């Protein structure tokens, strides 16, 4: 797929040779990649459908080198894109053709783990899971656990405000980060938050979380560590139809229970996962719920009993409770492997990320099934049901003419529905380049303009990750006009539920 994206229309005039010369003066030779074949591995992130070579790849080894790069780029007005492990799914780390791609992978030191203050100070290239591993000797862990936690880095987690399967109880990245140190585009050191629970002035720490590399480059993060619960158990409930499963989610919350995790998978997802990891899921179920409780053994016993009662009352056809830690991990392994499992069933897939009010889950699933028929593409569904965050995985084959276009149109309809249901186009994966046009579905021109002014407050010349996150006003107008045109066609009127 060519990049017909908002990134491509942001052009900068850059003298590549002059830039390389300036960067060579401040970086060791091996920290600069300039040949096409050595830059090729950096041409995309987890959104592999979009590929673009940068002008140059820079691999700073520390903050001082990153600072030197930014100072030069600022002076020469060269765009900069930061990259961690590139597991992001929205193209947030897709390079800019006129810019420097700065890989922060070498900044991978865990600077300190302090069990008394329950914090860890880490560099941005540290992997999510390795923070928990470093904290494990103290019976502490880092709570946000995106499915990519083996590979994804803390810098990327902050940039995307990453979630995971335990957000309902333990929050997103923004709730678990105390301080972010970084560099402004001018190359100045900036600190958002501190070692205390709040900082004076505006809550810039909240703003930097999820800002997709558009406001600053992250060089160090202080994360909050959470005491490991004494015990965790998970209940798997299988349902004969998706509506019952969706309603069971609302009933659990209505009963005053906040599960540590509450996940849903539909039949296609179960059938993708089960042969792949043998998690022990019910292959006859139309949907399953995974519902976790953690705390003291007394609390868990009490909560599991209440959850089980609600699930039975909601019409669960079968219920199983993990009997030991190994079984609990096995039950979760299926959910966490859902993306690669679906990846085995299809040459390519697109992962959507809308969030909707929980009460619309069943309705959304039914709409997705109708869209699956309309576009003649298979779709497996995994949901963070507890927080209404959907991950429909639309399967396609990029080598079949028209399939990618159909998949993209299918995805766009899901996102439009998410907004119409009172939700959002992205719950945790970010806008990046993938959803930049659909932003116009959720925000007015005045709101988009406010986002641009906010960006300017940090980055006057628009050099940090240009073209991502927020569409230009011109693209918004185009998008709105195009949607207004197609809304009249009988085709879309057939499948879109009217509200």
């Amino acid at each position, binding site marked *: 797929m060519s990049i017909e994206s908002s990134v491509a229309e942001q052009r900068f005039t850059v003298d590549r040779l002059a830039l390389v010369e300036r960067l060579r003066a401040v970086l060791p030779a091996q920290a600069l990649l300039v040949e096409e074949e050595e830059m090729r591995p950096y041409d995309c992130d987890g959104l592999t459908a979009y590929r673009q070579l940068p002008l140059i790849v820079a691999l700073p080894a520390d903050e001082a080198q990153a600072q030197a790069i930014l100072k030069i780029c600022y002076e020469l007005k060269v765009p900069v894109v930061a990259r961690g492990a590139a597991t992001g799914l929205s193209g947030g780390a897709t390079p800019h053709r006129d810019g420097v791609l700065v890989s922060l992978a070498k900044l991978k030191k865990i600077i300190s783990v302090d069990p008394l203050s329950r914090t860890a100070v880490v560099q941005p290239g540290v992997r999510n899971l390795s923070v928990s591993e470093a904290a494990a000797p103290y019976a502490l862990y880092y709570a946000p656990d995106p499915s990519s936690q083996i590979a994804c880095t803390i810098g990327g987690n902050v940039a995307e405000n990453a979630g995971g399967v335990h957000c309902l109880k333990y929050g997103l990245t923004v709730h678990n980060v105390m301080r972010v140190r970084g560099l402004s585009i001018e190359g100045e050191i900036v*600190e958002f938050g501190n070692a205390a629970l709040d900082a004076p002035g*505006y809550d810039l720490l909240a703003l930097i979380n999820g800002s997709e590399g558009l406001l600053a480059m992250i060089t160090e993060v202080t994360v909050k560590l959470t005491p490991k619960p004494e015990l965790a158990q998970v209940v798997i409930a299988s349902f004969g139809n998706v509506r019952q499963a969706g309603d069971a989610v609302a009933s659990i919350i209505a009963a*005053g229970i906040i599960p540590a995790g509450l996940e849903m998978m539909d039949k296609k997802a179960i059938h993708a996962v089960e042969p792949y990891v043998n998690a022990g899921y019910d292959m006859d179920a139309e949907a399953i719920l995974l519902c976790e409780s953690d705390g*003291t053994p007394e609390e868990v*016993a009490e909560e599991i009993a209440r959850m089980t009662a609600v699930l039975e009352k909601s019409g669960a056809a079968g219920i199983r409770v993990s009997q030991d830690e190994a079984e609990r991990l096995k039950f979760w392994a299926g959910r966490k492997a859902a993306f690669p499992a679906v990846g085995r069933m299809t040459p390519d897939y697109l992962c959507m990320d809308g969030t909707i009010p929980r009460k619309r889950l069943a309705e959304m699933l039914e709409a997705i099934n109708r869209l699956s028929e309309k576009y003649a593409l298979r779709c497996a569904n995994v949901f963070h049901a*507890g927080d209404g965050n959907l991950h429909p995985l639309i399967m396609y084959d990029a080598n079949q003419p028209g399939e990618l276009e159909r998949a993209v149109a299918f995805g766009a309809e899901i996102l439009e529905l998410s907004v119409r249901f009172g939700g*959002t186009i992205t719950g945790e994966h970010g806008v990046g380049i993938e959803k930049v046009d659909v932003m116009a579905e959720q925000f007015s021109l*005045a709101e988009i303009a406010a986002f641009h002014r906010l960006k300017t407050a940090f980055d006057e010349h628009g050099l940090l990750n240009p073209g991502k996150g*927020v569409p230009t006003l011109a693209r918004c107008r185009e998008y709105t006009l195009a949607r207004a045109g197609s809304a009249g066609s009988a085709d879309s009127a057939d499948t879109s539920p009217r509200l």
Partner: protein
Amino acid sequence: MEELIDDWMARIADAARVGGSLAIRGGGSKLFYGCPEQGEKADLLEVGGYRGIVAYEPTELVVTARTGTPLRELAATLAEKGQWLPFEPPHFGPAATVGGMFAAGLSGPRRQAVGALRDYVLGAKLLNGSGEVLSFGGQVMKNVAGYDVSRLLAGSLGTLGLVLEVSLKVLPLPVAEKSLRFAIDEGEALRKLNEWGGRPLPISASAWQDGVLTLRLSGAAAALAAAQRHLGGEELGDGLAAEFWQSLREQTHAFFAGEAPVWRLSLPSVAPPQALPGPTLIEWGGAQRWLRAGDGGAIRVAAAKAGGHATLFRADDALKAAQGVFQLLSPPLLRIHRNLKHAFDPQGVFNRGRMYPGL
């Protein structure tokens, strides 16, 4: 009620035209907080009339309320469904409104366990300095579309615009609570609090003053009993305990009485006892320390040295003018603050100087 917004738009436009400013006022319960507004021409913009709960669905764990909604009314509505705002926002008076709570961004005793107000913000609707109505965030738990402006607005003291509506995450009320007391000195209390903080104990609040540490436990009854066996201490009667935590939340506790200025030190929980003159009261597991004293210079230096910051929380205008209310920002952060103010309120109409001079 929407005609109120039309009226405000006209007043914002007028103020912008003549270089005037508007002081946003809900219930007036937190007028003491922040800097006295600057500028002779500040007109009062009363927003208490724009009130009411717009949407509340207990199974979605979300409530949306207009800015002038009395906090008491919101709390009562949530309590009917067994839910609440777990960060225990201080009201500081019966007139407190949702908008004032949001603008001040303050959290109560439970903050150490459940997070701050900003952690519960899901969305906000704003009237900016150009008179535009803008919505950010939404009513769902996870939302990363666009910058997180609604959290930026929380605690911005109305300096970025008039917040019309906020959506907040709510949670079920705790099933059971129990408070325990320990006779213990300051250093030992801080050490214990941090040690306990690293264990999966259901501690939901803490307060140390004058050699007495009080802990509150919240959660399932069985978990509280287990924790009590582990921690020891002397149990406080339920009625007395409720009064005690309420008096800290609302600062009606004797510690806060009298005319001496009230300083709030926000420090790393592990910071050692601060050798500063004046009585002290420690909350949030060591992370929030109150001080009744006047020497702002030494307090600010000590707070910064410990890795935190100090706020002149309650004082007369003269002392506030002399000491500043909030800790000074580093030059790059101050520049970002000024730029953000300009981005939302280019003519400087709203709450001019309430947070920092010139903002």
